[in-house]
């Protein structure tokens, strides 16, 4: 199981601010995204979206382990 967190407008695309996804073994990030509904997977493909694993930003390919929290952060709209 992994916990997926969606910030900003991604929450509307996902239909919830977080979901859990069955995950039995460490899985590459793009394979995790591929398991999601097509519209959501497409939205997450935006290169401006940053990804944080367990609260830390990652750049490039990442391996998601069971129990991880994966957050998708779209461009910020400012405070």
């Amino acid at each position, binding site marked *: 199981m992994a916990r997926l967190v969606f910030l*900003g*407008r991604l929450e509307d695309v996902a239909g919830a601010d977080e979901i859990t996804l069955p995950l039995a073994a460490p899985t590459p990030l793009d394979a995790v995204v591929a398991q999601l509904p097509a519209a959501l997977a497409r939205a997450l493909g935006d290169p401006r979206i940053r990804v944080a694993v367990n*609260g*830390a930003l990652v750049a490039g390919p990442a391996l998601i382990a069971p129990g991880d929290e994966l957050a998708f*952060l779209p*461009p910020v*709209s*400012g*405070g």
Partner: protein
Amino acid sequence: MRVVRLLDTALDPAAELARFAAAHAGAGGLVSFLGQVRGGEGIEALDLRHFPPLTLPGIEALADSASARWRLDGIAILHRIGEMPPAAPIVLVAAAARHRRDAFSAVDYAMDHLKSDSWFWKREKRDGAWRWIEPRAEDGADLARWAPVT
């Protein structure tokens, strides 16, 4: 002193500023900026979201970088999260310094970075419907005013 807080209940600028001023009685100047929820155009509410692992640490780093860049006696950054009605205080930035120009610059710098380089997402309720606010082009231009310290 460095004060950095995210608040999920009402921000009281006068009380916060009085506390900050009392802690910096020796400063020659104290500059503050208060941002409030913009009204009009059918706006009913603003909802400000954050990502706990990054938002507060990012603002703490911003306060530290302002303190490193100007001679400050202290800096305070208080930011609301959650849902707010028009005119509600949303952000208070204050800097205390021996000389006013350092305090003015530090507050201006902190605000430009809060608006365009901090982990906040906001949506507006207009005429009963929520809509996410996208970044503005001007935000990047605001940031470009501050050259990296070399």
